[in-house]
């Protein structure tokens, strides 16, 4: 039991923090219209790349700094706390890259990893389909081998960033006769391939973040199959096991809570009445406790990994708890702001930059994406606690 970070870890935290303070204006979200957020995120990622900080946790040979687990955690914590826009690189650094590191051929590694590390490419994730959400193994998009190529037909949905992405990690069925989990393969798909149609889906925040993606006889070179044919399900579920501490979520909650506390402390005159209510004290204290617990649950995942063990249900706990916490925090913020809580960013009377209106909508998506809260509870119960399947 030792909760102290080593001096080197502390120094690393300071280094990341001071770099962020210099390179990321705290109010960038106010200055950059949402439509231009993507370009801002890309430019930010390229700045990170100059420092070797896009994938600091990767081995040096793949363009990383080879940071240990705790330094990774600190990095993620600081990035999220400072609201750094990592949307441009996240799918490459957290999903495509790690899977390629484990399953890729030398050629695939050489082709993709340095470009991810340099923030030259954006990746998207083509997993979900209209009839394969929680039940991902039910996916129907087909890939049929034809000589040196696979021919892909079908549809993906909720594909975040597909309209910007250069590459996609794609799950498609290669053996329709096999049991569901045993006929899926994992592909690296160039988004410029002919036959791909992207239709925007506007989310309830009003943003074009995700899409429907249609494949019509899209040809994928066989060298872009990742790992073995029909083993894609198992690779995808390992992908799901990389860095699952969900520390980013709780660090973002901490930053938001601190903003809320500062706001209540120096409430503007017209809101002083609301902010002085005793229930406000109680709720903010409650949130502070819950954030601290969330941090511990995330640290626990890393602590287990640092001991050389593999976290099982602990990662699901962290995801479930920290996303639900983010949603509770959003509700708390809105309720403290009263009628002001409903105002969107840049509206005339807005308080706290409309952060809580955004957070409330955003977190409602986050308790669904990446495995819903119910699915996490199922995983905890069945894989973690060994309860019988229903």
């Amino acid at each position, binding site marked *: *039991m*030792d*909760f*102290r*970070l*080593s001096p080197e*870890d502390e120094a690393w935290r300071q280094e990341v923090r001071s770099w962020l303070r210099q390179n990321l204006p705290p109010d960038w979200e106010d200055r950059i219209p949402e439509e231009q957020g993507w370009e801002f995120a890309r430019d930010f990622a390229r700045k990170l790349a100059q420092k070797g900080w896009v994938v600091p946790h990767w081995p040096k040979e793949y363009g990383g700094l080879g940071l240990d687990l*705790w330094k990774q955690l600190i990095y993620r914590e600081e990035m999220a706390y400072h609201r750094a826009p990592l949307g441009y690189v996240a799918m490459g650094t957290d999903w495509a890259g790690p899977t390629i590191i484990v399953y890729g051929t030398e050629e695939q590694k050489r082709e993709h990893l340095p470009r991810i590390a340099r923030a030259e490419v954006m990746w998207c994730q083509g997993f979900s389909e209209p009839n394969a959400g929680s039940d991902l193994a039910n996916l129907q998009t087909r890939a049929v081998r034809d000589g040196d190529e696979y021919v892909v037909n079908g549809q993906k949905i909720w594909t975040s960033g597909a309209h910007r992405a250069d590459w996609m990690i794609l799950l498609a069925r290669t053996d329709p006769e096999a049991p569901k989990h045993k006929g899926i393969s994992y592909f690296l798909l160039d988004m410029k391939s002919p036959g791909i149609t992207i239709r925007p889906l506007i989310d309830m925040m009003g943003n074009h973040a995700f899409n429907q993606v249609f494949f019509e006889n899209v040809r994928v070179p066989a060298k872009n199959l990742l790992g073995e044919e029909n083993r894609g399900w198992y690779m995808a579920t390992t992908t799901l096991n990389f860095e699952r501490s969900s520390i980013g979520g709780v660090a973002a909650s901490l930053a938001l809570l601190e903003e809320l*506390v500062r706001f*209540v*402390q120096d409430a503007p005159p017209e809101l002083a009445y609301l902010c002085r209510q005793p229930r*406000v*004290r*109680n709720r*903010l*204290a*409650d949130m*502070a*406790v*819950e954030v*601290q*617990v969330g941090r*511990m*649950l995330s*640290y*626990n995942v890393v*602590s*287990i990994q*640092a*001991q050389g063990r593999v976290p099982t*249900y*602990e990662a699901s*706990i962290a995801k*479930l*708890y920290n996303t639900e916490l983010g949603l509770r925090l959003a509700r708390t913020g809105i309720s403290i702001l009263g009628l002001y809580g409903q105002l969107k960013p840049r509206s005339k009377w807005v308080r706290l930059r409309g952060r809580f209106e955004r957070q409330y909508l955003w977190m409602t998506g986050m308790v669904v994406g990446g495995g819903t809260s*119910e699915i*996490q*509870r*199922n995983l*905890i*119960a*069945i894989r*973690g*606690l*060994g*309860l*019988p*399947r*229903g």
Partner: protein
Amino acid sequence: MDLGLDEQQEMLRNFARDFLEKECPEQLVREMEEDEKGYSPELWRKMAEQGWMGLIIPEEYGGAGMRITDLVVLLEEFGRFLVPGPFIPTVVLGAYPIMLAGTAQQREQLLPRIASGELIMTMALTEPSAKWDADGVELEARKEGNEYVLNGTKLFVQDAHVTDFMVVVARTGRGATPEEGISLFLVDSRSPGIKFELLRTIASDKQCEVTFENVRVPAGNLLGEEGKGWPIVHKTKLLAAVAACAYLVGLSQQDFDITLNYAKERVQFGRPIGSFQAIQHKLADAVIDVDGARFITYKAAWSLQENEPDAELMVSMAKAWCSEASRRVVAHGQQIHGGIGFTKDYKIQLYFRRQKWMELMWGDADYHRELVAEKLQI
């Protein structure tokens, strides 16, 4: 950083678990509910032989010189086995304030005897106002020559009736704040003028009303300086809150484990009830509560041990969380057991009733959230 136990703690835990499994069976826990003393002198002696009463007492006073996080590991097992008796009162409420504020003579006289299991102690703090804060301390101590004379009533004093000495929190004066003018006394529990009356509580633990009528205490038994006793109480309360959290962690874990097993074995509608999602999701939520309680407790204990600047904040966060999380866990435990959970013969109710006790001790969630708010300057 490492959230787990180190090797020595691991050994302590394993040893304590084996020991208590054998020496503190459910039967004993039940007997002690009915027993007037509320503890087994035989078990007390055996625990003393393991060096547990002296766990955090320095080696020079016959203790093991271990640390707060080690004590937490042990108390987690106490919670798991619902160990009855005055262990926390003796070690945390008795020995600890003496370690903090005792004169050389007081330490030499008392600490080795506590470590050896000879002395049982407690702290008499709360009164009929049921406040944990200094403004709840009204019991009067008047100086007369070389003695102090104590008059007043203490309430909810744990295990006072079986103690040899009590640390009595009394008022010797009044100042600008309620904290001023509070003094601590090491009072021989058999002094004339002291009366004990057992309270009937939800956990069937042994809490007392203690009345003091012209109780004479030698001036040499003042613990710390006259009028400046509150900081000692304050520090003791912090450790007591951590101890309560550790106990709740163990209690919740065991309640959860029993419930999980029950859910795997109990068959209704032709299958184990643990296969129903309504049950699975309760158990998933419960395991989060248990894990969260454990790590925030470890964090608080470590912060206190290391004198971290945010130690008090962490302690209040831990007690606020553990008080409510453990309540959710044992509530699920009852519900998942259905009718059998409501019976006296079945064990789960033992945990349910004790959870409420420890939830209230040393401040419930509302109390500690208020402290959190204060510390965060909200």
